[in-house]
């Protein structure tokens, strides 16, 4: 039982990291990033590939964050030139291209077969101890990330981000250039996604391209929207609700007869779709109120 709860907690914390990054980009700054899973994938694959070549884990994680962050830089430059919806489409395309590259470059990523045998964190410890240790590390990283996001949110930097979200032209009219802020926010949020990806790879130990589809991006969007856009606590609550949804659907399949794994996947997809529709119709600000930090 504890092992199950620990597993849920690890995945939930990974989603919290993803939500914190997206919240910085969308909740604070208003950037419509539909390519979040692409950076998650870059982090996962980078860390896995390096670890299997004997690179120490800490360096792998650092590389995951760095590569995801670097990949975000051109995306940031593009965000300066495009309207919201075009930027959204381009980022969606980007994450699909990442999946494409990962699927094709078999020499690097083993293509569709994926990468098995990724070393766990704390491989030297035994089962339950290793799991708890991993949980502790992820928790520590999440707490640090959440603290950093809160500091940013309450700072003058965060104020400008909210200004950009609310009225970018007004920010320019005050002599501040939104460009640098947007790029930094995309890099930081994507680096977080990269770290989340590394944790994911080293936890489930076997990654395949199919795990990095746009649906994951929209899971994170749901978490951010449901938890309350703009607030750090919202990212945590949202990830929690998302986990309830994902795990709940697994339980439902055990309870309700005659639904196959594949059908459940389709039902989940449909529910995400319905929720996206309902949220745009009725609660664009999320469950916990609107953008205010109060």
């Amino acid at each position, binding site marked *: 039982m504890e092992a199950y709860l620990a597993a849920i907690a690890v995945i939930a914390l990974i989603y919290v990291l993803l939500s914190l990054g997206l919240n910085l980009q969308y909740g604070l700054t208003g950037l419509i990033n539909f390519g979040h899973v692409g950076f998650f994938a870059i982090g996962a694959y980078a860390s896995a590939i390096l670890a299997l070549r004997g690179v120490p884990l800490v360096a792998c994680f650092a590389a995951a964050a760095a590569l995801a962050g670097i990949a975000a830089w051109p995306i940031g430059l593009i965000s300066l030139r495009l309207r919201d919806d075009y930027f959204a489409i381009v980022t969606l395309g980007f994450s699909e291209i990442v999946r494409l590259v990962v699927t094709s470059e078999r020499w690097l990523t083993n293509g569709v077969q994926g990468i098995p045998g990724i070393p766990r964190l704390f491989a030297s410890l035994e089962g339950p101890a290793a799991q708890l240790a991993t949980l502790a590390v992820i928790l520590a990283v999440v707490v640090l990330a959440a603290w950093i996001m809160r500091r940013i949110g309450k700072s*003058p*930097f965060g104020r400008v981000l909210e200004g950009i979200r609310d*009225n970018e032209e007004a*920010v320019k009219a*005050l*002599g501040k250039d939104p460009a640098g802020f947007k790029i*930094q926010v995309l890099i930081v949020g994507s680096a977080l996604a990269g770290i989340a990806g590394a944790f994911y790879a080293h936890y489930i130990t076997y990654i395949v391209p199919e795990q990095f589809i746009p649906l994951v991006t929209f899971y994170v969007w749901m978490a951010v929207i449901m938890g309350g856009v703009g607030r750090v606590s919202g990212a945590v609550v949202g990830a929690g609700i998302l986990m309830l949804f994902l795990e709940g659907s697994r339980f439902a399949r055990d309870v309700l007869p005659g639904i196959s794994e594949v059908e459940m996947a389709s039902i989940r997809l449909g529910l995400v779709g319905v929720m996206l529709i309902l949220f745009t119709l009725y609660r664009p600000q999320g469950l916990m109120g609107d953008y205010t930090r109060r």
Partner: protein
Amino acid sequence: MSLEARAISKSYGGFQALDRVSLQVESGGLFGLIGPNGAGKSTLFSILSGFLKADSGHVLLDGRAIDAVPAPARARAGMVRTFQVPRDFQHLTVHENLMAAAPGQVGETLPGLFFRPAKVRQQEAEIAARVGEILAFLRLSEVADQSAGKLSGGQKKLVELGRALMVEPRLILLDEPFAGVNPVLIGQIMERVADLNARGIGFLVIEHDLEALTRLVPRLAVMDRGRIIAQGAPDAVLDDPLVRDAYLGATL
């Protein structure tokens, strides 16, 4: 800070929005710009402040051409604009709106906010003090902690002006400061503008409300269909037959 528009033209598709528009605002001047809807006034503002590019002509600030200078840099140089429809940071409070406008904040950089917290705190205190003064000057102190999005139209215009003042400008482009504002507030805004002008800040004011504008400015220009059709002191300009034609039916 002097501002000059020299033969500025701008067209959209087949439509000529501005046709060789020239005007000059001398340093510390108080200059008005009126004209019917669609005359091109806001387009001119956008070009002067760097939000639009002119097809031809030049914008000169203190005698130097700034055509290649992007909008944020023009604001940093001392020329700030407001918008016809107030562009407030609606999810921030009035106080935060003005705090956000102050230039040179160390806390607006990531290294700054994490590695120099003491300096950030100090600056926040200094800026907050200035914000308090400006809010008091604009009679907005009571609503300082309200969400800017919840204010009335007139109050939003004052917040825009407040934000512009935080930048410590030498020239302010006011886009229809009186539109949609209740008459009592109009008087207040005019007083503030006159006050600031007396302290040396130049103004270029677009307005529809002829009566209010002519009480405020010693010089104005009239635009119609992309051209300046008259310039000078209000009385002289309003007697001009071309101007009367443009405002056919309007009360002068």
